């Protein structure tokens, strides 16, 4: 069996697993606020990992990045989404194409595929254990499952945001020393995307008076 990971690696892997578990929990969320709060928690875990990497590798810019991403993803994005849809029917339960347990089993299969595929690639020199990279890939794939299985705009939007979280996690593993200005550019891009998603969600909600995308079947072929 492989050698036991050290305390830092074990702790980092636990936080990465928590990110993946938050993604799975989104498959189950039945209220709009629950989805948004799960996203906030997931972003908090990713920021926590950034702080861990910064402390371990001595990269002071990552502290700034962690602070910025907490401000943006944990505070501003949930606020924007919840403010834009204040009168929405907050219950989005039952919007899945199949039930929660089936979706979780499907997502387990998909995540297993991702975990094993990424683990079979070899990455030298990374600042977090490569298990975290495999978990990041699993987060991306389960985010796709979330976007596919759920047919309401909030889950799909949160699915996209959590996909970006997964990519940030992957970036923390293999590209921790990406110049700060580039990372800040990514973050503000995400903010703009959030605003646009919010505007379109609001348009959808005002046109169809619901959050469900089951009615979006006009354009086909």
């Amino acid at each position: 069996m492989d050698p036991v990971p050290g305390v830092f690696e074990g702790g980092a892997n636990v936080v990465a697993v928590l990110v993946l578990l938050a993604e799975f929990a989104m498959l189950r969320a039945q209220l709009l606020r629950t989805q948004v709060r799960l996203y906030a928690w997931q972003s908090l875990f990713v920021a926590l990992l950034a702080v861990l990497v910064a402390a371990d590798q001595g990269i002071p810019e990552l502290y700034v990045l962690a602070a910025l991403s907490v401000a943006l993803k944990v505070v501003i994005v949930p606020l924007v989404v919840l403010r834009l849809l204040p009168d929405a029917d907050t219950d989005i339960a039952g919007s899945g194409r199949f039930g929660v347990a089936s979706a979780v089993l499907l997502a387990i299969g998909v995540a297993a595929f991702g975990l094993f595929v990424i683990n079979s690639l070899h990455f030298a020199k990374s600042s977090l254990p490569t298990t975290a990279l495999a978990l990041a890939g699993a987060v991306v794939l389960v985010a796709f499952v979330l976007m596919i299985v759920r047919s309401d705009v909030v889950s799909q939007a949160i699915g996209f945001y959590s996909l970006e979280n997964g990519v940030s996690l992957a970036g923390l593993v293999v590209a921790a020393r990406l110049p700060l200005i580039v990372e800040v550019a990514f973050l503000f891009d995400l903010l703009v995307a959030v605003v646009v998603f919010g505007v379109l969600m609001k348009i959808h909600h005002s046109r169809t008076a619901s959050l469900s995308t089951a009615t979006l079947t006009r354009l086909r072929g």
Partner: protein
Amino acid sequence: MITLAPPVVNALQVLTIAAAAPGISGVISRVETRLQGRRGTRVLQPYYDLAKLFRKETLLPDTASWVFLAAPLAAFTCYLTVPLLIPVLTSYPLPLGYMGDILGGGFVLALGSFLVALAAADSGAPYAQMGSSRAKTFSAITEPTVLLVVFTVALITTTDLPYALARTVRSSADQIVRPAHVLAAAALFMVILAETSRIPVETHTGTNEFGMIDEARSLEHSGPAYALLKWGSAMKQLILYTILADVFLVPWGLASTGRATSVGLAILALLGKAVAIGCVVAVIDNSFAKLRLFKITEFVAAAFLLAVLAVFTLYLGGG
């Protein structure tokens, strides 16, 4: 200093579990009622209940067969066997501990549960049969979870003996922090909540038959058989808590030698750990609502997910 021979310590393990089990149930119900702001039941109340039940007569349904009377005794025997296999008091394996590994222990527990369900189905009463079929349905998902937890144990220590896992966990801090260990412990805790019929799977108090799963299986029994059933389920609860505490979470405080004082301290440590876990369960009981029946699949699917992730992270070499 009195040194106890290993067989004596082995017997002491069984006696401790058997004697302390109703007490732990009593502590949990007292903590729960106190948290609700009530005066609370006596801690020793389950003992008085058992004593009362042993004095009562047994009534059988007309359609019951010998299974109905034999099953509680057989299940109780199973529950007496398992403490021989797991680290209850000592950190070194005891002679009868090689009779079965943790997989064997899991199987014996499942056998006990199955026998009780069989007796309930034999009784012919509708609620008992409903509880029996429900319990077996949900155990179809919880059993794979337990197996996966066992596999995690096996993958970490390359052996199935729970003593070895306890020794590994004690060895260094990084063993506690590794994700496979954390995930397996979390999965086991969720399975324990399901197996000991606690919130969010079932309400332990009250008699709402439509919501009962495990509780309904013992509805038709009476007298000493019923006492054995209640005692057996209390023992199962304490056994599961012991496995969680002594193998996964806090494998410290176990006796490393056969000296009487260390064994005595180990008994106290075990009771303390079980009470602590019981308090956590009581808090959960008071904080969450029972899940609707078909949402319980989501709960056990979550436990399954945690166990699967435990195995995967181990297999990927980083956990």
